[in-house]
Protein backbone atom coordinates (compact mmCIF):
# COMPACT_ATOMS: atom_id res chain seq x y z
CA UNK A 1 0.00 0.00 0.00
CA UNK A 2 3.09 2.24 -0.41
CA UNK A 3 2.38 4.29 2.74
CA UNK A 4 -0.57 6.25 1.33
CA UNK A 5 -3.93 5.97 3.07
CA UNK A 6 -6.22 3.50 1.36
CA UNK A 7 -8.86 5.52 -0.40
CA UNK A 8 -10.57 3.01 -2.62
CA UNK A 9 -13.00 0.32 -1.48
CA UNK A 10 -10.82 -2.44 -2.85
CA UNK A 11 -7.95 -1.09 -0.81
CA UNK A 12 -9.99 -1.57 2.34
CA UNK A 13 -11.21 -4.97 1.39
CA UNK A 14 -9.91 -7.90 3.36
CA UNK A 15 -7.56 -10.10 1.32
CA UNK A 16 -7.62 -13.76 2.27
CA UNK A 17 -5.15 -16.17 0.69
CA UNK A 18 -5.79 -19.88 0.29
CA UNK A 19 -2.68 -22.00 -0.31
CA UNK A 20 -3.52 -23.74 -3.59
CA UNK A 21 -0.70 -26.22 -4.03
CA UNK A 22 -2.71 -29.36 -3.43
CA UNK A 23 -5.86 -30.44 -1.59
CA UNK A 24 -9.42 -29.19 -1.19
CA UNK A 25 -8.72 -25.62 -2.26
CA UNK A 26 -11.99 -24.89 -4.09
CA UNK A 27 -13.98 -26.12 -1.08
CA UNK A 28 -12.15 -23.59 1.11
CA UNK A 29 -12.72 -20.78 -1.38
CA UNK A 30 -16.42 -21.62 -1.68
CA UNK A 31 -17.02 -21.91 2.06
CA UNK A 32 -15.20 -18.61 2.66
CA UNK A 33 -17.35 -16.94 0.02
CA UNK A 34 -20.47 -18.36 1.64
CA UNK A 35 -19.42 -17.28 5.15
CA UNK A 36 -18.64 -13.76 3.92
CA UNK A 37 -21.90 -13.61 2.01
CA UNK A 38 -23.88 -14.71 5.09
CA UNK A 39 -22.25 -11.89 7.06
CA UNK A 40 -22.87 -9.38 4.29
CA UNK A 41 -19.16 -8.75 3.90
CA UNK A 42 -16.93 -8.69 0.85
CA UNK A 43 -13.34 -9.82 0.64
CA UNK A 44 -10.85 -10.67 -2.03
CA UNK A 45 -9.97 -14.35 -1.98
CA UNK A 46 -6.60 -15.10 -3.52
CA UNK A 47 -5.19 -18.53 -4.34
CA UNK A 48 -1.50 -18.93 -3.48
CA UNK A 49 0.47 -21.18 -5.83
CA UNK A 50 3.85 -19.50 -5.86
CA UNK A 51 5.97 -17.15 -3.76
CA UNK A 52 5.17 -13.45 -3.82
CA UNK A 53 1.48 -13.65 -2.91
CA UNK A 54 1.56 -14.32 0.84
CA UNK A 55 2.90 -10.82 1.70
CA UNK A 56 -0.21 -9.26 0.10
CA UNK A 57 -2.62 -11.23 2.29
CA UNK A 58 -4.40 -10.19 5.50
CA UNK A 59 -4.89 -13.86 6.34
CA UNK A 60 -3.92 -17.26 4.98
CA UNK A 61 -5.62 -20.66 4.94
CA UNK A 62 -3.77 -23.97 4.63
CA UNK A 63 -6.25 -26.49 3.22
CA UNK A 64 -6.69 -30.21 3.72
CA UNK A 65 -4.65 -32.50 1.49
CA UNK A 66 -1.57 -34.65 1.87
CA UNK A 67 0.79 -33.03 4.35
CA UNK A 68 3.93 -34.60 2.86
CA UNK A 69 3.11 -33.34 -0.64
CA UNK A 70 2.06 -29.92 0.66
CA UNK A 71 5.15 -29.56 2.84
CA UNK A 72 7.49 -30.51 0.04
CA UNK A 73 5.96 -28.10 -2.48
CA UNK A 74 5.69 -25.23 0.07
CA UNK A 75 9.48 -25.42 0.42
CA UNK A 76 10.09 -25.84 -3.31
CA UNK A 77 7.97 -22.78 -4.10
CA UNK A 78 9.53 -20.76 -1.28
CA UNK A 79 6.16 -20.18 0.37
CA UNK A 80 7.23 -21.68 3.71
CA UNK A 81 9.46 -18.75 4.70
CA UNK A 82 6.83 -16.25 3.58
CA UNK A 83 4.32 -17.93 5.88
CA UNK A 84 6.77 -17.76 8.80
CA UNK A 85 7.32 -14.06 8.15
CA UNK A 86 3.57 -13.44 7.89
CA UNK A 87 2.96 -15.24 11.16
CA UNK A 88 5.60 -13.09 12.85
CA UNK A 89 3.63 -10.04 11.74
CA UNK A 90 0.56 -11.56 13.42
CA UNK A 91 -1.28 -12.38 10.20
CA UNK A 92 -4.09 -14.84 11.05
CA UNK A 93 -3.39 -18.32 9.65
CA UNK A 94 -5.85 -21.21 9.70
CA UNK A 95 -4.90 -24.81 8.88
CA UNK A 96 -7.37 -27.68 8.51
CA UNK A 97 -6.36 -31.36 8.68
CA UNK A 98 -3.05 -31.50 6.74
CA UNK A 99 -2.86 -27.77 7.47
CA UNK A 100 -2.82 -28.54 11.21
CA UNK A 101 0.21 -30.81 10.71
CA UNK A 102 2.07 -28.12 8.76
CA UNK A 103 1.45 -25.51 11.49
CA UNK A 104 2.97 -27.69 14.20
CA UNK A 105 6.39 -27.37 15.75
CA UNK A 106 6.89 -31.12 16.02
CA UNK A 107 5.41 -34.40 14.91
CA UNK A 108 5.28 -37.95 16.19
CA UNK A 109 7.26 -40.83 14.66
CA UNK A 110 4.88 -41.18 11.70
CA UNK A 111 5.42 -37.51 10.84
CA UNK A 112 9.19 -37.76 11.28
CA UNK A 113 9.45 -40.88 9.15
CA UNK A 114 8.44 -39.00 6.03
CA UNK A 115 10.87 -36.09 6.63
CA UNK A 116 7.77 -33.91 6.79
CA UNK A 117 8.49 -30.19 6.43
CA UNK A 118 6.80 -28.34 9.31
CA UNK A 119 6.24 -24.58 9.51
CA UNK A 120 6.56 -24.60 13.31
CA UNK A 121 4.09 -21.74 13.83
CA UNK A 122 2.38 -23.36 16.79
CA UNK A 123 3.82 -24.80 19.98
CA UNK A 124 2.26 -28.23 19.56
CA UNK A 125 3.18 -31.82 18.69
CA UNK A 126 0.90 -33.49 16.17
CA UNK A 127 0.09 -37.12 15.59
CA UNK A 128 -0.51 -38.05 11.95
CA UNK A 129 -3.57 -40.24 11.26
CA UNK A 130 -4.40 -40.05 14.96
CA UNK A 131 -7.75 -41.76 14.43
CA UNK A 132 -6.57 -44.42 11.98
CA UNK A 133 -7.02 -45.17 8.32
CA UNK A 134 -9.82 -44.18 5.97
CA UNK A 135 -12.31 -46.86 7.14
CA UNK A 136 -12.01 -45.32 10.61
CA UNK A 137 -12.66 -41.76 9.36
CA UNK A 138 -15.84 -40.32 10.85
CA UNK A 139 -18.34 -37.52 11.30
CA UNK A 140 -19.49 -36.52 14.77
CA UNK A 141 -21.26 -33.75 16.67
CA UNK A 142 -18.35 -32.00 18.34
CA UNK A 143 -18.40 -29.53 21.23
CA UNK A 144 -16.23 -26.55 20.35
CA UNK A 145 -15.29 -24.08 23.06
CA UNK A 146 -16.17 -21.00 21.05
CA UNK A 147 -19.55 -22.28 19.81
CA UNK A 148 -22.80 -22.52 21.77
CA UNK A 149 -23.98 -25.73 20.12
CA UNK A 150 -22.17 -28.79 18.67
CA UNK A 151 -20.54 -28.63 15.26
CA UNK A 152 -20.85 -31.43 12.67
CA UNK A 153 -17.16 -32.19 12.33
CA UNK A 154 -15.80 -34.34 9.47
CA UNK A 155 -12.56 -36.17 10.25
CA UNK A 156 -10.73 -37.74 7.28
CA UNK A 157 -7.56 -39.63 8.19
CA UNK A 158 -7.29 -36.76 10.61
CA UNK A 159 -4.33 -35.68 12.73
CA UNK A 160 -4.58 -34.52 16.34
CA UNK A 161 -2.50 -32.47 18.74
CA UNK A 162 -1.04 -34.69 21.43
CA UNK A 163 1.03 -32.10 23.28
CA UNK A 164 0.50 -28.36 23.53
CA UNK A 165 2.48 -25.52 25.09
CA UNK A 166 1.08 -23.19 27.74
CA UNK A 167 0.17 -20.45 25.26
CA UNK A 168 -2.07 -22.76 23.26
CA UNK A 169 -5.80 -22.44 23.81
CA UNK A 170 -7.61 -25.76 23.38
CA UNK A 171 -10.90 -25.32 21.52
CA UNK A 172 -12.08 -28.91 21.09
CA UNK A 173 -11.08 -32.41 22.14
CA UNK A 174 -11.99 -36.02 21.37
CA UNK A 175 -11.00 -38.20 24.30
CA UNK A 176 -7.48 -37.05 25.17
CA UNK A 177 -6.72 -35.66 21.71
CA UNK A 178 -6.88 -31.98 20.85
CA UNK A 179 -8.73 -31.46 17.55
CA UNK A 180 -8.99 -27.66 17.48
CA UNK A 181 -6.65 -25.13 19.06
CA UNK A 182 -5.46 -21.56 18.79
CA UNK A 183 -2.21 -19.86 19.64
CA UNK A 184 -2.44 -16.10 19.13
CA UNK A 185 -2.87 -15.63 15.34
CA UNK A 186 -2.73 -19.32 14.45
CA UNK A 187 -5.81 -21.58 14.33
CA UNK A 188 -5.42 -25.34 13.82
CA UNK A 189 -8.39 -27.60 13.11
CA UNK A 190 -8.10 -31.38 12.66
CA UNK A 191 -11.45 -31.67 10.88
CA UNK A 192 -12.85 -30.08 7.71
CA UNK A 193 -15.17 -27.08 8.27
CA UNK A 194 -14.87 -26.49 4.50
CA UNK A 195 -16.77 -29.71 3.71
CA UNK A 196 -19.96 -28.81 5.57
CA UNK A 197 -22.34 -25.88 5.24
CA UNK A 198 -21.98 -24.72 8.85
CA UNK A 199 -19.94 -21.49 8.61
CA UNK A 200 -19.31 -20.95 12.31
CA UNK A 201 -15.66 -21.98 12.27
CA UNK A 202 -15.13 -19.61 9.37
CA UNK A 203 -16.91 -16.81 11.27
CA UNK A 204 -14.44 -17.38 14.08
CA UNK A 205 -11.49 -17.07 11.69
CA UNK A 206 -13.01 -13.96 10.05
CA UNK A 207 -13.31 -12.40 13.53
CA UNK A 208 -9.59 -13.08 14.07
CA UNK A 209 -8.84 -11.26 10.81
CA UNK A 210 -11.07 -8.29 11.72
CA UNK A 211 -9.45 -8.00 15.12
CA UNK A 212 -5.98 -7.97 13.56
CA UNK A 213 -7.02 -5.39 10.97
CA UNK A 214 -8.54 -3.08 13.60
CA UNK A 215 -5.26 -3.08 15.55
CA UNK A 216 -2.58 -3.68 12.92
CA UNK A 217 0.31 -2.61 15.10
CA UNK A 218 -0.64 -4.50 18.24
CA UNK A 219 2.25 -6.94 17.83
Amino acid at each position, binding site marked *: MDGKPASTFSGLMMRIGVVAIQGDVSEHVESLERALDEQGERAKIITIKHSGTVPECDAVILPG*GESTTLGRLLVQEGIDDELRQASKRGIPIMGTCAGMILLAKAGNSLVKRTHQHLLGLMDVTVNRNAFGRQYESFETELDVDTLDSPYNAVF*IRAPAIVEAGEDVRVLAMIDDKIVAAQQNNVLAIAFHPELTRDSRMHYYFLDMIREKRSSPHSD
Partner: protein
Amino acid sequence: MELEKLRHGTELIKRGFAKMQKGGVIMDVTNAEEAKIAEDAGAVAVMALHAVPADIRKAGGVARMADPMVTADIIDTVTIPVMAKARIGHFVEAEILQALGADMIDESEVLTPADEKYHIDKTEFTVPFVCGARNLGEALRRINEGAAMIRTKGEAGTGDVREAVRHMKQIMGEIRQLAGKNKEELIEVAREIEAPIELVMETAQMQRLPVVNFAAGGVATPADAALMMRLGADGVFVGSGIFKAENPAMMASAIVEAVNNYDKPEVLAKVSKGIGAGMKGISIDTIPEEQVLQTRGW
Protein backbone atom coordinates in the same frame (compact mmCIF):
# COMPACT_ATOMS: atom_id res chain seq x y z
CA MET B 1 -16.09 -40.06 23.03
CA GLU B 2 -18.67 -42.85 22.74
CA LEU B 3 -18.12 -44.91 19.64
CA GLU B 4 -21.79 -44.95 18.59
CA LYS B 5 -21.63 -41.19 18.12
CA LEU B 6 -19.09 -41.54 15.33
CA ARG B 7 -20.57 -42.04 11.87
CA HIS B 8 -18.27 -43.94 9.49
CA GLY B 9 -18.35 -44.40 5.71
CA THR B 10 -20.82 -41.59 4.94
CA GLU B 11 -21.02 -40.10 1.45
CA LEU B 12 -19.46 -36.90 2.82
CA ILE B 13 -16.46 -38.79 4.21
CA LYS B 14 -15.99 -40.87 1.06
CA ARG B 15 -16.22 -37.96 -1.37
CA GLY B 16 -14.27 -35.80 1.08
CA PHE B 17 -11.35 -38.24 1.00
CA ALA B 18 -11.21 -37.92 -2.80
CA LYS B 19 -11.25 -34.11 -2.51
CA MET B 20 -8.09 -34.24 -0.38
CA GLN B 21 -6.29 -35.85 -3.34
CA LYS B 22 -6.98 -32.93 -5.69
CA GLY B 23 -4.01 -31.36 -7.38
CA GLY B 24 -2.00 -34.48 -6.63
CA VAL B 25 -0.35 -37.43 -8.34
CA ILE B 26 -1.29 -41.00 -7.44
CA MET B 27 1.35 -43.53 -8.43
CA ASP B 28 1.12 -47.26 -9.22
CA VAL B 29 3.50 -49.32 -7.09
CA THR B 30 4.10 -53.06 -6.84
CA ASN B 31 6.14 -53.26 -3.62
CA ALA B 32 7.10 -51.35 -0.49
CA GLU B 33 10.33 -50.04 -1.98
CA GLU B 34 8.53 -48.42 -4.90
CA ALA B 35 5.91 -47.05 -2.51
CA LYS B 36 8.65 -45.30 -0.52
CA ILE B 37 10.10 -43.76 -3.70
CA ALA B 38 6.63 -42.49 -4.60
CA GLU B 39 6.05 -41.02 -1.14
CA ASP B 40 9.44 -39.30 -1.12
CA ALA B 41 8.72 -37.82 -4.55
CA GLY B 42 5.55 -36.16 -3.23
CA ALA B 43 2.80 -38.55 -4.37
CA VAL B 44 -0.51 -37.88 -2.59
CA ALA B 45 -1.26 -41.61 -2.56
CA VAL B 46 -0.02 -44.88 -4.01
CA MET B 47 -1.96 -47.57 -5.86
CA ALA B 48 -0.95 -51.11 -4.93
CA LEU B 49 -1.11 -53.73 -7.65
CA HIS B 50 0.76 -56.92 -8.48
CA ALA B 51 2.31 -55.61 -11.71
CA VAL B 52 2.16 -52.26 -13.48
CA PRO B 53 -0.29 -52.24 -16.41
CA ALA B 54 2.50 -52.46 -19.02
CA ASP B 55 3.66 -55.75 -17.45
CA ILE B 56 0.08 -56.99 -17.07
CA ARG B 57 -0.32 -56.50 -20.82
CA LYS B 58 2.90 -58.34 -21.56
CA ALA B 59 2.16 -61.25 -19.23
CA GLY B 60 -1.39 -61.91 -20.41
CA GLY B 61 -3.46 -64.43 -18.44
CA VAL B 62 -5.84 -63.46 -15.63
CA ALA B 63 -4.97 -60.29 -13.73
CA ARG B 64 -6.24 -60.27 -10.13
CA MET B 65 -5.88 -58.06 -7.04
CA ALA B 66 -2.35 -57.90 -5.64
CA ASP B 67 -1.07 -60.41 -3.11
CA PRO B 68 -2.49 -59.23 0.28
CA MET B 69 0.99 -59.65 1.75
CA VAL B 70 2.40 -57.06 -0.64
CA THR B 71 -0.51 -54.66 -0.08
CA ALA B 72 -0.13 -55.01 3.70
CA ASP B 73 3.61 -54.40 3.41
CA ILE B 74 3.01 -51.21 1.41
CA ILE B 75 0.42 -50.04 3.98
CA ASP B 76 2.99 -50.54 6.74
CA THR B 77 5.73 -48.72 4.83
CA VAL B 78 4.18 -45.40 3.83
CA THR B 79 2.07 -42.86 5.71
CA ILE B 80 0.26 -41.49 2.65
CA PRO B 81 -3.01 -43.19 1.65
CA VAL B 82 -2.75 -46.58 -0.02
CA MET B 83 -5.26 -47.48 -2.72
CA ALA B 84 -5.58 -50.93 -4.27
CA LYS B 85 -7.22 -52.45 -7.33
CA ALA B 86 -10.02 -55.01 -7.32
CA ARG B 87 -11.51 -56.67 -10.39
CA ILE B 88 -14.74 -55.24 -11.79
CA GLY B 89 -17.64 -56.90 -9.96
CA HIS B 90 -15.37 -58.77 -7.54
CA PHE B 91 -16.87 -57.56 -4.28
CA VAL B 92 -14.98 -60.16 -2.27
CA GLU B 93 -11.59 -58.87 -3.45
CA ALA B 94 -12.88 -55.43 -2.45
CA GLU B 95 -13.90 -56.70 1.00
CA ILE B 96 -10.43 -58.19 1.45
CA LEU B 97 -8.79 -54.89 0.48
CA GLN B 98 -11.02 -53.01 2.92
CA ALA B 99 -10.13 -55.50 5.66
CA LEU B 100 -6.42 -55.01 4.88
CA GLY B 101 -6.81 -51.28 5.49
CA ALA B 102 -6.73 -49.94 1.91
CA ASP B 103 -7.90 -46.30 1.99
CA MET B 104 -9.61 -46.41 -1.40
CA ILE B 105 -10.44 -49.21 -3.83
CA ASP B 106 -10.05 -48.90 -7.59
CA GLU B 107 -12.61 -51.14 -9.32
CA SER B 108 -10.37 -51.40 -12.33
CA GLU B 109 -10.58 -52.48 -15.95
CA VAL B 110 -6.81 -53.07 -15.81
CA LEU B 111 -7.58 -56.33 -14.01
CA THR B 112 -9.63 -59.11 -15.63
CA PRO B 113 -13.34 -58.45 -14.93
CA ALA B 114 -15.02 -60.95 -12.59
CA ASP B 115 -18.57 -60.02 -13.60
CA GLU B 116 -19.65 -59.26 -17.13
CA LYS B 117 -22.88 -57.59 -16.11
CA TYR B 118 -22.64 -55.88 -12.72
CA HIS B 119 -20.14 -53.59 -11.07
CA ILE B 120 -19.63 -53.74 -7.28
CA ASP B 121 -22.37 -52.15 -5.14
CA LYS B 122 -20.00 -49.61 -3.68
CA THR B 123 -22.58 -48.13 -1.27
CA GLU B 124 -22.15 -51.27 0.87
CA PHE B 125 -18.55 -50.37 1.72
CA THR B 126 -17.04 -48.09 4.36
CA VAL B 127 -14.04 -47.18 2.21
CA PRO B 128 -14.49 -45.05 -0.92
CA PHE B 129 -14.11 -46.31 -4.50
CA VAL B 130 -12.66 -44.83 -7.67
CA CYS B 131 -13.85 -46.12 -11.05
CA GLY B 132 -12.84 -45.57 -14.66
CA ALA B 133 -15.06 -43.92 -17.26
CA ARG B 134 -14.87 -43.05 -20.96
CA ASN B 135 -17.93 -40.82 -21.11
CA LEU B 136 -20.46 -39.03 -18.93
CA GLY B 137 -22.97 -41.89 -18.89
CA GLU B 138 -20.36 -44.33 -17.62
CA ALA B 139 -19.14 -41.84 -15.00
CA LEU B 140 -22.63 -41.16 -13.66
CA ARG B 141 -23.53 -44.87 -13.57
CA ARG B 142 -20.46 -45.51 -11.44
CA ILE B 143 -21.31 -42.57 -9.15
CA ASN B 144 -24.84 -43.96 -8.84
CA GLU B 145 -23.31 -47.29 -7.70
CA GLY B 146 -21.43 -45.35 -5.01
CA ALA B 147 -18.11 -44.33 -6.61
CA ALA B 148 -16.63 -41.35 -4.71
CA MET B 149 -14.12 -40.52 -7.44
CA ILE B 150 -13.93 -40.95 -11.22
CA ARG B 151 -10.89 -41.28 -13.44
CA THR B 152 -10.67 -41.51 -17.19
CA LYS B 153 -9.93 -45.02 -18.38
CA GLY B 154 -7.50 -43.97 -21.08
CA GLU B 155 -5.61 -47.03 -22.26
CA ALA B 156 -3.51 -48.28 -19.35
CA GLY B 157 -0.01 -49.62 -19.80
CA THR B 158 0.60 -48.00 -23.17
CA GLY B 159 2.33 -44.74 -22.30
CA ASP B 160 0.13 -43.32 -25.06
CA VAL B 161 -1.92 -40.46 -23.62
CA ARG B 162 -4.34 -40.14 -26.51
CA GLU B 163 -7.19 -42.22 -25.05
CA ALA B 164 -7.03 -40.36 -21.72
CA VAL B 165 -7.28 -37.12 -23.70
CA ARG B 166 -10.23 -38.49 -25.66
CA HIS B 167 -12.09 -39.58 -22.52
CA MET B 168 -11.44 -36.35 -20.62
CA LYS B 169 -12.59 -34.21 -23.56
CA GLN B 170 -15.61 -36.45 -24.05
CA ILE B 171 -16.72 -36.09 -20.41
CA MET B 172 -16.02 -32.34 -20.26
CA GLY B 173 -17.76 -31.78 -23.59
CA GLU B 174 -20.84 -33.72 -22.52
CA ILE B 175 -21.01 -31.67 -19.30
CA ARG B 176 -20.80 -28.40 -21.25
CA GLN B 177 -23.62 -29.57 -23.52
CA LEU B 178 -25.88 -29.94 -20.47
CA ALA B 179 -25.71 -26.20 -19.77
CA GLY B 180 -28.86 -24.34 -20.67
CA LYS B 181 -30.97 -27.45 -21.15
CA ASN B 182 -34.39 -27.51 -19.47
CA LYS B 183 -35.74 -30.38 -17.39
CA GLU B 184 -37.38 -32.31 -20.21
CA GLU B 185 -34.24 -32.04 -22.32
CA LEU B 186 -32.14 -33.30 -19.39
CA ILE B 187 -34.53 -36.23 -18.96
CA GLU B 188 -33.97 -37.01 -22.63
CA VAL B 189 -30.17 -36.87 -22.14
CA ALA B 190 -30.42 -39.10 -19.06
CA ARG B 191 -32.28 -41.68 -21.15
CA GLU B 192 -29.77 -41.47 -23.99
CA ILE B 193 -26.66 -41.83 -21.83
CA GLU B 194 -28.34 -44.34 -19.49
CA ALA B 195 -27.67 -42.35 -16.34
CA PRO B 196 -29.95 -41.40 -13.42
CA ILE B 197 -31.79 -38.12 -14.03
CA GLU B 198 -30.91 -36.75 -10.55
CA LEU B 199 -27.19 -37.07 -11.29
CA VAL B 200 -27.61 -35.59 -14.77
CA MET B 201 -29.41 -32.59 -13.27
CA GLU B 202 -26.80 -32.18 -10.54
CA THR B 203 -24.00 -32.31 -13.12
CA ALA B 204 -25.79 -29.81 -15.36
CA GLN B 205 -26.21 -27.40 -12.47
CA MET B 206 -22.65 -27.77 -11.08
CA GLN B 207 -21.08 -27.87 -14.57
CA ARG B 208 -18.72 -30.54 -13.36
CA LEU B 209 -18.95 -34.13 -12.15
CA PRO B 210 -20.42 -34.34 -8.63
CA VAL B 211 -17.23 -36.12 -7.51
CA VAL B 212 -13.51 -35.55 -8.07
CA ASN B 213 -12.38 -36.44 -11.60
CA PHE B 214 -8.78 -37.57 -12.24
CA ALA B 215 -6.96 -38.46 -15.44
CA ALA B 216 -5.52 -41.95 -15.92
CA GLY B 217 -4.44 -44.42 -18.56
CA GLY B 218 -1.36 -43.59 -20.62
CA VAL B 219 0.16 -40.65 -18.72
CA ALA B 220 3.94 -41.11 -19.10
CA THR B 221 5.71 -37.73 -18.86
CA PRO B 222 5.49 -34.41 -16.97
CA ALA B 223 4.06 -32.89 -20.13
CA ASP B 224 1.35 -35.57 -20.34
CA ALA B 225 0.38 -34.90 -16.73
CA ALA B 226 0.25 -31.13 -17.31
CA LEU B 227 -1.81 -31.68 -20.47
CA MET B 228 -4.44 -33.61 -18.52
CA MET B 229 -4.58 -30.86 -15.87
CA ARG B 230 -5.05 -28.28 -18.63
CA LEU B 231 -7.98 -30.33 -19.93
CA GLY B 232 -9.65 -30.02 -16.52
CA ALA B 233 -8.49 -33.06 -14.56
CA ASP B 234 -8.51 -32.60 -10.76
CA GLY B 235 -5.32 -34.66 -10.53
CA VAL B 236 -3.46 -37.49 -12.22
CA PHE B 237 -2.90 -41.23 -11.82
CA VAL B 238 0.39 -42.45 -13.24
CA GLY B 239 0.67 -46.19 -13.77
CA SER B 240 3.56 -47.67 -15.69
CA GLY B 241 4.88 -44.19 -16.49
CA ILE B 242 7.01 -43.98 -13.36
CA PHE B 243 8.47 -47.40 -12.66
CA LYS B 244 8.94 -48.18 -16.38
CA ALA B 245 10.91 -44.94 -16.80
CA GLU B 246 14.71 -44.92 -16.85
CA ASN B 247 14.92 -43.08 -13.51
CA PRO B 248 11.68 -43.61 -11.51
CA ALA B 249 12.55 -41.26 -8.62
CA MET B 250 13.36 -38.35 -10.95
CA MET B 251 10.35 -39.02 -13.16
CA ALA B 252 8.10 -39.17 -10.09
CA SER B 253 9.31 -35.81 -8.68
CA ALA B 254 9.13 -34.20 -12.11
CA ILE B 255 5.50 -35.28 -12.61
CA VAL B 256 4.55 -33.97 -9.15
CA GLU B 257 6.10 -30.60 -9.98
CA ALA B 258 4.48 -30.58 -13.40
CA VAL B 259 1.01 -31.07 -11.91
CA ASN B 260 1.59 -28.15 -9.54
CA ASN B 261 2.86 -25.94 -12.40
CA TYR B 262 0.72 -27.25 -15.24
CA ASP B 263 0.03 -23.75 -16.55
CA LYS B 264 3.68 -22.60 -16.44
CA PRO B 265 5.52 -23.76 -19.61
CA GLU B 266 8.87 -22.37 -18.40
CA VAL B 267 8.66 -24.45 -15.22
CA LEU B 268 7.54 -27.49 -17.22
CA ALA B 269 10.57 -27.06 -19.47
CA LYS B 270 12.82 -27.00 -16.44
CA VAL B 271 11.33 -30.03 -14.68
CA SER B 272 11.27 -32.07 -17.90
CA LYS B 273 15.01 -31.64 -18.42
CA GLY B 274 17.55 -34.34 -17.55
CA ILE B 275 15.12 -36.79 -15.99
CA GLY B 276 16.05 -39.72 -18.24
CA ALA B 277 13.90 -41.49 -20.80
CA GLY B 278 10.22 -42.07 -20.25
CA MET B 279 8.66 -45.53 -20.60
CA LYS B 280 8.99 -46.98 -24.08
CA GLY B 281 5.29 -47.46 -24.55
CA ILE B 282 3.20 -48.88 -27.34
CA SER B 283 1.05 -47.03 -29.80
CA ILE B 284 -2.63 -47.85 -29.34
CA ASP B 285 -2.98 -48.55 -33.07
CA THR B 286 -0.84 -51.67 -32.73
CA ILE B 287 -2.92 -53.27 -29.95
CA PRO B 288 -5.22 -56.11 -31.09
CA GLU B 289 -8.85 -55.41 -30.23
CA GLU B 290 -9.10 -58.24 -27.69
CA GLN B 291 -6.25 -56.70 -25.69
CA VAL B 292 -7.87 -53.27 -25.35
CA LEU B 293 -8.61 -52.63 -21.65
CA GLN B 294 -10.90 -49.61 -21.83
CA THR B 295 -13.84 -51.58 -23.23
CA ARG B 296 -14.03 -53.59 -20.01
CA GLY B 297 -16.86 -52.27 -17.83
CA TRP B 298 -19.91 -50.49 -19.21
